[in-house]
């Protein structure tokens, strides 16, 4: 065990936003977001969730392996959204390295099958 620092802290971004998407807090471990920014405008992925998050009965959502172009960079993140009483928490896990390795492996398998 390393001392002093945990391993995942730099891979996880916690964003707190109201139901209209307005961000109040973000620890910015992956991508800088200012208080007052709108999470639904961050990326079309979030925009398409707006209706199901606000109107649905679900309060907990997990989305594995979402490709997100944020600024100039492409990330593969797992995204968790938890609806609380009067706000929502959006957790981004930056698993880009893991999913890129996985993509290369699957590329070999499906690429071979596709040719045959």
């Amino acid at each position, binding site marked *: 065990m390393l001392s002093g620092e945990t391993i995942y802290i730099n891979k996880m971004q916690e964003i707190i936003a109201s139901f209209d998407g307005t961000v109040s807090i973000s620890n910015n471990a992956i991508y800088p977001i200012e208080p007052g920014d709108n999470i639904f405008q961050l*990326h*079309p*992925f979030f*925009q*398409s*969730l*707006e*209706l*199901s998050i606000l109107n*649905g009965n*679900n309060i907990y*959502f*997990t*989305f*594995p*392996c*979402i*490709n997100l172009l944020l600024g100039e960079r492409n990330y*593969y993140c797992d995204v968790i959204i938890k609806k609380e009483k009067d706000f929502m928490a959006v957790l981004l896990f930056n698993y880009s390295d893991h*999913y890129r390795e*996985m*993509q290369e492996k*699957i*590329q070999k398998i*499906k*690429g071979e*099958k*596709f040719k045959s």
Partner: protein
Amino acid sequence: MAAVKKIVLLGHFGVGKTSLVRRYIDSAFSEDYLVTVGVHVKKKEVIVNDEPVTLIIWDIEGNNSIEKARSSYLLGTQGFIYVFDITRQETYESIEEEMAFLQEHHDQVPVCLVGNKSDLFTDEFTKEFFKDPEFESCYFTSAKTGDNVEALFLDLAKRTL
């Protein structure tokens, strides 16, 4: 404000889901096959019946059956595009089951069935090959030439309203 509609592309690997989105959004095509893992989400603004509509298109990784797709990806979908490859039988032989699955689990959601790679039809191998009832309202598209791609997305957009 524009209505926002979530569209999901389904189908086996290599049928051309990513290529159709790329043709529709970037007017581009590549012969290279770059396998999708997880999901890529893109958007496009269109005008339907004089009203602006924002299509948010989920291009998901290929699966042999919809049941294997991660269920959270399908949440809140307002239109499905089910793509098969006209040149590969395994990609369309279970169409009936696949359509039945959508009917059962997403019965209010419009579905467009799409036979892609129509540029590979020949004088002998034509659309007539797909004359069974399950292909009745099938679109035939080519992401390579762009044939019917715009019409497909516009028709589905209309049906989501």
